[in-house]
């Protein structure tokens, strides 16, 4: 229900977006870097806010909060509905685990610990802004905040290689967002609204909507690292610190997909996009195959996990061709499948990166074949890597499997059975590179390795996330129910 919204409606979402910023300012003002309790308080507050929004949503259903005056007419404001709330909860979950992991990972590097918070926390608020924004302007704002923070995080250790990946990431961001901006401009000119769900303001399809969709889709595929435009992601995530790349790969790439999904889900009926969907589908299938193949060939553990992201992003984007060709309820199955895939991938990828970080730190070498005989030394990290791998491969009982199953159902529902083949081959390829790592861990090491032990706390977060990723398969009912909370038109 569209309402200008009194103060009470604005309080919770606004607080949710601003809280991480205030937390960052507080962190900057202190001389010593943020200690354990400080972090715990911040996470607790954010958790409470997230919970508040989710409960409020379940109680009163979805609604749109528009800014007063001119901005309101253009549709600028916040949109509270199931999908947004789900992603806010997901962000809280993963960001808090990453915060804990960062805190323990940089235990003996106070300087870095000081600098890292003023990048991570604004990133968190930028993400929350993107999830809840109703229009392209706020989305653009959120994307740029996230971009600034991510560039900083990638280039954190100041060596040449990460710096170069940061440059490449910056180029991707700049070009992608400008295309988004131009698309929004065409939208404003054509339909006089900036709102993502154009249907709220006007209902007749037109040339402006078609051109705008093309521009926006192109821009966001670049930011989301879909196949031909994926090249910035592996070096960026592969070379930065493990907990940070966990945060980046689990959340940041999802933002662009999230925006594009909202746009398509809302306006797909307005612009007949069978062909565009097919093109995105082709790129997605190429991403699955290429990502899987390159991941299987990698020598370094973190590069393997990074390329696995390229592989998995392909699965999300398979949703678009399915929506384009589907009847409403099959489109809903496709959406559920894609969202489940996003959630389980976010959890699994974060766990994978953190576990990989622990393993790399333990055996002091980036290479996979250095992992021989590690099963005796780091069992818990290995187990979390294994469980997360199960979800990535899409084997039961993980969330990945249920997502793969739902996408299969959607693909068969739309009659385009070839996407099913792509999904299954992709599953096989991801099994290939995951088992390549398992294989090494079972190899009996030559003699006694000079492993050095990190702190035990480092292994808690990946284990928790891995269990969530695998357990998602059994409790998938809840997130899907949340997805159905819509904004009444």
């Amino acid at each position, binding site marked *: 229900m569209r309402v200008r919204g009194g103060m009470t409606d604005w309080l919770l979402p606004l607080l949710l977006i601003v809280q991480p910023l205030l937390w960052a300012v507080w962190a900057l003002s202190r001389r010593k870097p943020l200690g354990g309790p400080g972090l715990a308080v911040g996470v607790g507050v954010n958790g409470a806010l997230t919970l508040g929004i989710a409960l409020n949503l379940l109680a009163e259903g979805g609604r749109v909060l528009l800014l007063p005056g001119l901005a309101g007419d253009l549709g600028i404001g916040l949109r509270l509905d199931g999908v947004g709330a789900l992603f806010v909860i997901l962000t809280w979950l993963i960001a808090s685990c990453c915060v804990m992991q960062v805190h323990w990972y940089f235990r003996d590097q106070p300087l870095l610990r000081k600098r890292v918070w003023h990048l991570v926390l604004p990133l968190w608020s930028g993400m929350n802004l993107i999830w809840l924004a109703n229009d392209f302007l706020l989305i653009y704002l959120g994307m740029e905040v996230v971009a600034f923070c991510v560039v900083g995080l990638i280039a954190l250790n100041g060596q040449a290689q990460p*710096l170069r990946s*940061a*440059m490449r990431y910056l180029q991707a961001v700049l070009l992608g967002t400008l295309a988004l901006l*131009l698309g929004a*401009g065409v939208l404003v*000119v054509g339909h006089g609204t900036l709102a993502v769900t154009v249907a709220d303001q006007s209902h007749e399809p037109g040339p402006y909507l078609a051109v705008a969709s093309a521009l926006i889709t192109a821009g966001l595929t670049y930011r989301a690292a879909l196949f031909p435009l994926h090249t910035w992601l592996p070096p960026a995530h592969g070379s930065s610190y493990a907990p940070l790349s966990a945060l980046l790969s689990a959340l940041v790439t999802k933002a662009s997909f999230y925006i594009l999904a909202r746009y398509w889900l809302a306006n797909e009926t307005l612009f007949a996009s069978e062909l565009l969907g097919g093109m995105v589908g082709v790129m997605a299938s190429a991403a699955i195959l290429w990502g899987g193949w390159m991941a299987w060939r990698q*020598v370094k553990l973190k*590069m393997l996990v990074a390329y696995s992201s390229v592989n998995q992003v392909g699965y999300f984007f398979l949703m678009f061709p399915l929506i384009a060709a589907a009847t409403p309820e099959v489109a809903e199955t496709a959406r559920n499948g894609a969202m489940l895939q996003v959630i389980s991938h976010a959890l699994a990828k974060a766990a994978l990166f953190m576990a990989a970080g622990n393993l790399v730190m333990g055996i002091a070498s980036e290479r996979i074949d250095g992992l021989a005989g590690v099963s005796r030394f780091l069992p818990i990290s290995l187990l979390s890597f294994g469980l997360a791998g199960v979800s990535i491969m899409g084997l039961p009982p993980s969330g990945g499997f249920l997502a793969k199953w739902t996408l299969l159902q959607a693909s068969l529902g739309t009659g385009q059975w070839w996407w099913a083949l792509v999904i299954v081959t992709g599953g096989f390829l991801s099994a290939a590179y995951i088992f390549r790592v398992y294989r090494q861990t079972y190899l009996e090491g030559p003699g006694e390795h000079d492993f050095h032990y990190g702190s035990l706390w480092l292994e808690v977060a990946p284990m928790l996330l891995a269990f969530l990723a695998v357990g998602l398969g059994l409790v998938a009912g809840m997130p899907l129910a949340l997805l159905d909370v819509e904004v009444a038109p």
Partner: protein
Amino acid sequence: MLELMFTLVGGLLLMAGIWLFLSRRDFALRALAFLLLTLGGFVLLLVFVPSDHLSGLILLAALGLPVSLALAVLARFLQRRLWQLSDEVDPDAGEGRHD
């Protein structure tokens, strides 16, 4: 008359952007070229916009373009920082699998 002037300026900006984009291969300038392209796009859009939607376009351009400019400057700064690290080798070298 005003439309004609706007289309002329928009077209000029587009041409400059494309020329800059094709001529230099380093990041910052490429970013700048794309910025010019988008600016040209906006100016052309001004020709078609009905009067009541003008405000939305202005708002969008007013916010978007400066931020993009800032990003282009950040790209420039990072590039110079990169050279300072005296990594004279081709910036793309060492990206591959083997290092």
